């Protein structure tokens, strides 16, 4: 069953040029362009891309804090922009977010227990104090924190523990979708795996859908059922996690796969040859045609003509005129 569907979603921000006169039209920053995606109930979607590829903007559009400039966000088949006030409130409770910097996302002057109880207080104001405490304790146990720590302040916790608090906070309301915006990028590598595994387990146990955002494929591939690759606001490739990584059809996906560090130095040297060079172009003036062509090792003149649409290549869908035909080496 489709829980969330994005239809040609675009988000643009007006940006005033430096020194521009008030009557001059502002530049448009195209953060997200024509993205169509689906997330089924209970499914985990990994969203990957470099910094500035529009992942976080997409997340905020799904949550409803940034309006779509064009296209639609459909929640259980209903347009998010057209929800009634009551339904919108329910949507707020059904979709929860986990943040990148776990310590920054917690109020330093609020005990962890109160922080976790906050969503309850807002969305179920009738629950008694004892009831709230009980549910906070339950959810803390679920994420592997002792309920005894309820009255501690965030600075008394480590980064990994803070992220557990962040996850607990997202879970108290029993949401249907959790959007995790780079939930482990700020954590130590040794703690990352624990938090990723915890999220994976919780989401499966509770039947929650998850959008897991990361800039690093190696983090995403363990959690995700499907993976979507974004570049400069556009979807490059979407497909089931395993084939997408084993045999990427889009040159950009392949570059990301090859950017994953390899423990064996001899193989690493071979792989590094295919890496993409240079910086991501400005979203204020994206390249014509395929946005990736300026950095694509396989770019040809016809790539500049029109932005390619997603089309099936083997087991995934890729937006590329000249997809990689052969299965990747290794």
């Amino acid at each position, binding site marked *: 069953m489709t829980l969330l569907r994005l239809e040609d979603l675009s988000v643009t921000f007006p940006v005033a040029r430096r020194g521009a006169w008030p009557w001059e039209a502002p530049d448009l920053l195209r953060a997200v362009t024509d993205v169509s995606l689906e997330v089924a109930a209970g499914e985990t979607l990994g969203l990957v891309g470099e910094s500035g590829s529009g992942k976080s903007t997409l997340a905020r559009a799904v949550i409803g804090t940034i309006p779509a400039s064009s296209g639609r966000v459909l929640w259980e088949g209903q347009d998010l922009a057209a929800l009634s006030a009551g339904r919108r*409130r329910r949507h707020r409770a059904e979709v929860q977010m986990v943040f990148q910097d776990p310590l*920054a996302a917690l109020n330093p*002057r609020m005990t962890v227990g109160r922080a976790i109880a906050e969503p309850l207080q807002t969305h179920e104001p009738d629950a008694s104090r004892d009831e709230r405490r009980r549910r906070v304790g339950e959810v803390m146990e679920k994420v*592997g*924190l*002792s309920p005894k720590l309820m009255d501690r302040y965030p600075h008394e*916790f*480590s980064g990994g*523990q803070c992220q557990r608090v962040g996850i607990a906070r997202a879970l108290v309301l029993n949401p249907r979708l959790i959007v995790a915006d780079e939930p482990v990028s700020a954590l130590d590598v040794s703690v990352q795996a*624990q938090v990723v595994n915890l999220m994976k387990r919780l989401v499966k146990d509770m039947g929650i859908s998850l959008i897991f955002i990361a800039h690093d494929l190696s983090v995403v591939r363990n959690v995700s059922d499907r993976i979507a690759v974004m570049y400069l606001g556009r979807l490059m490739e979407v497909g089931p996690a395993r084939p997408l990584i084993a045999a990427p059809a889009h040159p950009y996906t392949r570059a990301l796969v090859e950017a994953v560090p390899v423990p064996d130095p001899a193989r690493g040297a071979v792989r590094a040859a295919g890496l993409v060079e240079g910086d991501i172009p400005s979203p204020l003036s994206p390249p014509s045609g395929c946005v990736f062509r300026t950095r694509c090792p396989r770019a040809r003149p016809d790539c500049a003509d029109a932005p390619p649409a997603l089309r099936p290549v083997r087991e995934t869908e890729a937006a590329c005129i000249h997809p990689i035909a052969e299965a990747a080496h290794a």
Partner: protein
Amino acid sequence: MTDPTHIPADPHEETPLAPSAHRPSRWRAVWDGDLAWSFRRSPVALVAALVVLVMVLGAALAPLIAPYTPFDPASLNLFNGITPPFTANEFTGDYFLFGTDDQGRDVLSTILYGLRISLFVGVMAVLFAMLLGITLGLLAGYAGGWTDTVIMRVADVQLTFPSILVALLIFGVARGIVPIEHRADMAIWVLILAIGLSDWVQFARVVRGATLVQKDREYVQAARLIGRSNGAIMFRHILPNVLSPVLVIATISLALAIIAEATLSFLGVGAPPTQPSLGTLIRIGQDFLFSGEWWILFFPAMTLLALALSVNLLGDWLRDALNPRLR
């Protein structure tokens, strides 16, 4: 990770663990905290706190510890008038530590009662200014847009007048409104209102500035995503995080408010002679200065000086202690 010493070592995080098994009591935690530590190491702060403490206790316990009841006409003896300090009166043999005024009132006792009025007006005025300034500052910083513009422009305009002038103006208006028979009773409250209204601007400015910083922090966005109302975000999330600079300003403001009260009373528009504050006492004492009765002016003035200086020094210490850049 603001303070690496607070991160517990946790190599095996998969197991639930406590940062530390036992938690010290709240008082113990405050005593061991950074603030208490810097307090114990600052001789200036210790002395200033001692002076303030003695004065507050003296004011609070005035009816118990004052040697005479200076505002009970029945207890006054005109033969005691103008007794110099540190000597017994030559007619009655009564001893007055700080001497007496022309009515035979004990100056020490009038100071103790005067301190009550001065401290009460000062504290209440600062509380009033805080309430007003914090609310308006939070609102201006959080709402932004024209709300911000209106509030801060009003504040700017008010800053262009000397605050004592603003207080005088408010005092004058209040005098016009309050009927004559209530004027003496209302004088104290009008003082509080006048000083408080002339002093809210700095609270508003500081709170607005801090709110602008906090507003963009991720925890505020998180609270907004959770669906908390603007009021809850302002008062439950942002307010606790902007209070430490407010504490510093409140302390320094208290010294200023006490001086402002004394100034107004000295000018004759503050506390009435029936309920004299330190400022009123100084005004009365001034009449005797040139005829040689210096003590009627000297002791109230020194008390005011010591009080204002001590509160100010405490404020300075607090500012340094709370500002990590100076530590």
